C-alpha cells in the first residue's frame, strides 16, 4: 500500500515521535497552576464550611430563625432558592446532622455581609435538634454546614412560570427564600403561596411574608383551627382551594409535614395536571418507621448489635430496630454524615456486609445496582437483626 510514497510512509512513526518531543522541548517550564473550572465548582460546592451563629430571632411563638455566617467572613455558596443546608452539630462530643430548608435568599448569601438563615419550629417533644435550636442554641456557636443541597427549586427548563406553593407550617421556609428572590427581581416567576397554619397567632414568618407581597408574590393564609374572627381562607389546602388560586399553566411545589403530604397527594391528583407539574420536597427522617407497610412491628422494641467497619477498624454498637442506622451511629459517637436524611440523596450510602434490614419506602433514592449489592442509604435503613455495615472514614 502507499499513502504518499514509501520513505515518507515508513518514516511516520519517527516523524510523529520527533514532533511530540519537540512540542515538549518548546513548552514553558513554568508550572501552570490555574484550574478556573475547578474553582467555579468549588465556589458552588465547597463542601462543609465552618459557620457561626450570628443572630437568633423569633419567627413565631413556636419557631426561631437562626442566621449563620461563615467563620472566615467569606461569601456563602450560590444556591437555588428552595434548597437546603445540612448542618452538623456537635452535641456533647457527638456529631449529629440535620437538613433545613434555607429561609433566606441566595442574594443574601452574596452581599458584603453574607449570611444564610434557617427557621426551625419547636417540636412536640420528639425533635432532638429542633428543640436544641429553639431552647439552647446561642449566638457564637459554631457548626459545620453544607449548602445548597436538594432538588426542590424552580428549574426553567421544566417548570411553569406560574408557581403555586403549597406550604404547611414550617414547610413555608423554602418558599420564603423563593419569595425573597422574586421580590429581589432575580427569580422570574409568579409565586402564589397557599400557606396552611393552625392559628393566626402562630403563623411562621408572618411579617417577613407580608413584607414580600407584591406584583409577583401572593400569600394566601389558610387556617385549619377554629377562629370565628378570621376573614381569610379556612380548612385544609383542598383541590378546590388550589384551583381557585391557580392561573393557567402552573407548577405546584409542596412542602410540609408528612400528614399533609398524604392529604395533598389525593388533592393534587384531582387537579388533573401532568405529573411534571407537581413537586414534593423530601420531608426528612421518618418520625415513626413502624407505620410503613412491610415493617415488622413485632421487632420495633428490639435492640441489635451493629458492627461498624471503617477501613480496618471495627466497632460494635447497639442499634434499635425503630431507629435508622445513622441514628445508631450518632448515638454511639461514630460520625456518619448525612445530607437529606430522607433516603433520597445517597450521601450516606452504606454497604451492608451482613444482616437483615428494612428500608423506608418513602423516598428510597437507591440506584438499582446498589439494591442488588445490599447498599442502603443509612438514614432510611433500619436494622432487623445483628448487622455489619461499612461506612466512610471521617
Amino acid at each position, binding site marked *: 500500500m502507499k*499513502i504518499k510514497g514509501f520513505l515518507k510512509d515508513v518514516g*511516520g512513526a519517527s516523524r510523529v515521535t520527533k514532533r*511530540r518531543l519537540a512540542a515538549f522541548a*518548546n*513548552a514553558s517550564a513554568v508550572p501552570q497552576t490555574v484550574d478556573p473550572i475547578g474553582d467555579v465548582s468549588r*465556589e458552588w460546592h465547597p463542601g462543609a464550611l465552618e459557620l457561626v451563629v450570628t443572630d437568633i430571632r423569633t419567627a413565631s411563638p413556636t419557631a426561631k430563625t437562626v442566621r449563620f455566617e461563615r467563620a472566615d467572613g467569606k461569601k456563602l455558596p450560590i444556591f437555588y432558592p428552595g434548597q437546603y443546608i445540612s448542618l452538623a452539630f456537635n452535641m456533647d462530643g457527638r456529631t449529629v446532622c440535620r437538613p433545613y430548608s434555607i429561609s433566606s435568599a441566595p442574594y443574601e448569601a452574596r452581599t458584603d455581609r453574607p449570611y444564610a438563615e434557617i427557621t426551625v419550629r419547636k417540636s412536640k417533644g420528639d425533635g432532638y435538634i429542633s428543640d436544641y435550636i429553639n431552647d439552647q442554641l446561642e449566638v457564637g456557636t459554631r457548626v459545620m454546614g453544607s449548602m445548597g443541597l436538594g432538588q426542590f427549586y424552580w428549574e426553567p427548563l421544566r417548570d411553569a412560570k406560574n408557581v403555586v406553593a403549597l406550604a404547611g407550617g414550617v414547610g413555608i421556609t423554602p418558599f420564603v427564600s423563593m419569595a425573597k428572590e422574586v421580590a429581589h427581581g432575580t427569580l422570574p416567576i409568579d409565586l402564589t403561596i397557599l400557606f396552611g397554619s393552625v392559628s393566626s397567632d402562630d403563623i411562621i414568618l408572618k411579617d417577613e411574608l407580608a413584607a414580600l407581597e407584591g406584583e409577583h408574590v401572593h400569600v394566601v393564609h389558610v387556617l385549619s383551627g377554629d377562629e370565628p374572627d378570621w376573614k381569610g381562607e379556612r380548612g385544609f389546602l383542598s383541590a378546590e382551594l388550589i384551583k381557585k388560586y391557580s392561573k393557567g399553566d402552573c407548577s405546584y411545589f409542596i412542602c410540609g409535614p408528612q400528614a399533609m403530604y398524604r392529604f395533598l397527594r389525593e388533592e393534587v391528583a384531582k387537579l388533573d395536571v401532568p405529573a411534571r407539574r407537581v413537586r414534593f420536597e423530601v420531608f426528612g427522617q421518618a418520625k415513626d418507621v413502624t407505620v410503613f407497610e412491610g415493617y415488622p412491628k413485632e421487632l420495633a422494641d428490639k435492640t441489635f448489635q451493629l458492627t461498624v467497619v471503617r477501613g480496618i477498624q471495627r466497632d460494635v454498637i447497639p442499634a434499635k430496630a425503630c431507629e435508622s442506622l445513622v441514628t445508631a451511629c450518632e448515638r454511639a459517637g461514630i460520625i456518619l454524615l448525612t445530607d437529606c436524611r430522607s433516603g433520597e440523596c*445517597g450521601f450516606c450510602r452504606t454497604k451492608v456486609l451482613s444482616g437483615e434490614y428494612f428500608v423506608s419506602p418513602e423516598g428510597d433514592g437507591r440506584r438499582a445496582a446498589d439494591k442488588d449489592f445490599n447498599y442502603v442509604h443509612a438514614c432510611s435503613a433500619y436494622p432487623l437483626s445483628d448487622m455489619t455495615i461499612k461506612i466512610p472514614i471521617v
Partner: protein
Amino acid sequence: MKFYKDHYDVIVVGGALAGLSSALMLADKGLDVLVLERHNLPGGIATSFVRGGIEIEASLHEMMSIGSKEHRLKVGKFFDDMGVDIDWLRVPEAYHASLPGLEVTLHPGFETFAKEVDAAVPGTYEKVLKVLNLCHTVFDSVNELSIHPMSKPQMLLKHEAFVKTAGYSTKEVLDTFDLPQKALDLLAPYWIYVGSGFSDLPFTIYSVLMADYVGYGSYIPRKFSHEMSLKMAERAEAMGVQIEYRQHVDKILVKDGKAYGVRTARGDEIHADYVICSAYPNSVYTHMIEPASEVPAKAIKMVNGRKLSLTAFSVILILDKTAEELGIKDYSVFRGTTMDTDACYEELKGLGPYHYITCICHNLANPDATPKGTCSYSITTLPRVDGWKTVTAEDYDKVKHQVANQLIEYMNEYLGFDLRDHVLECVIETPMTVAHYTGMWNGCIYGYSHSMDDHIVARLQTAEEEKFIEGLEFSGAHQISGDGMGPAVTNGRKAAKNVLDDIKKKEAAAK
C-alpha cells in the same frame, strides 16, 4: 483508631474505571491494594443518579471494545477474565446522521455499514468498505502490538498498514480514497469521541475507533454505567482490595525521586511501594507532589507541552411520554450543520452556540431504562475546556441555561416538537459538574488531545522517558490510550502492568 494498614503494595488514587481496572489486575496477581476514591461511590463519571425516584445515566452513550459473548473484544474479555459479570445490552444501531442533505441511519458490521452508506450515496460501496477494512487492519495491529511489541523491520513486514499510516492525519489518509463528500460525511460523525479535527487527528486513532465501533457494535449495561462501576468495585473487594470512599488524596509523598505513599485531606499518611494516580499529571505535578522540589522541570514541560482535550456538556431529560409516542426512533443521533470536523472542533472552543451534538435515547436499547410511560433523552456536546475557563461562579447558572436552551432548541427543530413540554426531570451536566464530582483538572474528561503533536504511536515510543518519579504510575484518560470508557480500562490495565513489570524486574535483580 486505626483505619489503614501500615503498608500496602499499591495505593490507587481514584476509584473510577481506570483505577478499578488497575486494582482488579493487581489483586488478581495477589498484591495488597488500597483504592482511595473522593466520591461516595465508584465509577467517576461512569455512574448514575436518581431524581424524583428515576435512575438516570450520567454519561455513558455506548461502551466499545466489549463484543458479543461469542466474540469478546479486549475490554469485554478483561471483565470476563476478572469475573466482573455485567448484563450487557446491545445498542441497535451505529448512529443516525442528521447532516445537511443527509438523514441516514447506519448499523454496525463493515458490510452492512458500507451498504447503507452506498444506499445514501450510490456507487461508494467498494471504497467505503476499503476504508473500513484498512481501519480494521490497523485496529488488529494496534491490539497485537500492545501485547507483543516487535522490532521495526518486523513490524513493517507484519503490520504494513499500521506502519505506513502512522505518520498521517485522518484527512491525509481518507483523501487518498477519493470518496464523494457525502460519503465522507457519513464516515465522520463518531469522530467527536476522540477529539481533534481530521487534519490533526492521527489516522491510527480514527482506525481504532471506526473498526471497534462500526465493526463490532457497542453495548450498555442494563443498570446503567453504575452497574459496571459497582460490579468492578464489588469484585475488587471480593479479591481483597480495600476501597475507601470519600477519601480525597491531597499529596503524593516522594523521597529521593521515589513515591512512597499518599496523604489524604483527612490527614492520614498511608505508605505503599507504588502509587497509581488517576488525577491529571497537571494536578499531580503542580499541586500534589510533596515536596514540590521532587518535581523535575521536564515533567512541567511535558504537561505544558500537551493540550487538554474535550469535556462534556449534557442536558439529560426524563420525558413524560414514551419514545414511540414522541416519535423518537434512534438510539443515537448525530446532528450537525457541517461535517467539516476541523470547523466543528474550532466551534467547540467557545461557549456556544454549538452545532455538532449527540443525542441518546436509552430506552431504544433498554426499554426499561425509565418507568413505564416515560423515556430518557440526552443532548450532549463535547466542548473544549477553553471557553468554559472564562465562566465565573456568578455567571455559571446563566451560561448553563443558555447553552441548555440552545441545545434543546436545536434538537426541537429536528424532532418537530418542544422537548420542554415534556420534562419530568432534568439535569444539566457541565464541565463544572465533572470537576465537582471527579476533581478532574479543569473538568476535562478526554485527557490530552489526540493530535499529530501528541500521537498515540509517539506516546508509546516515549512512555519510558516520561516516568519522572519512580513508583508513580498514572491511569486515566490522560494516558496512552486516551479518552473513553473502554480506553479507561485499557489505561488502568497498562498502569497495573507497569507495576507488575517493575516488581518482576526488581525480583530478578535481587536474585
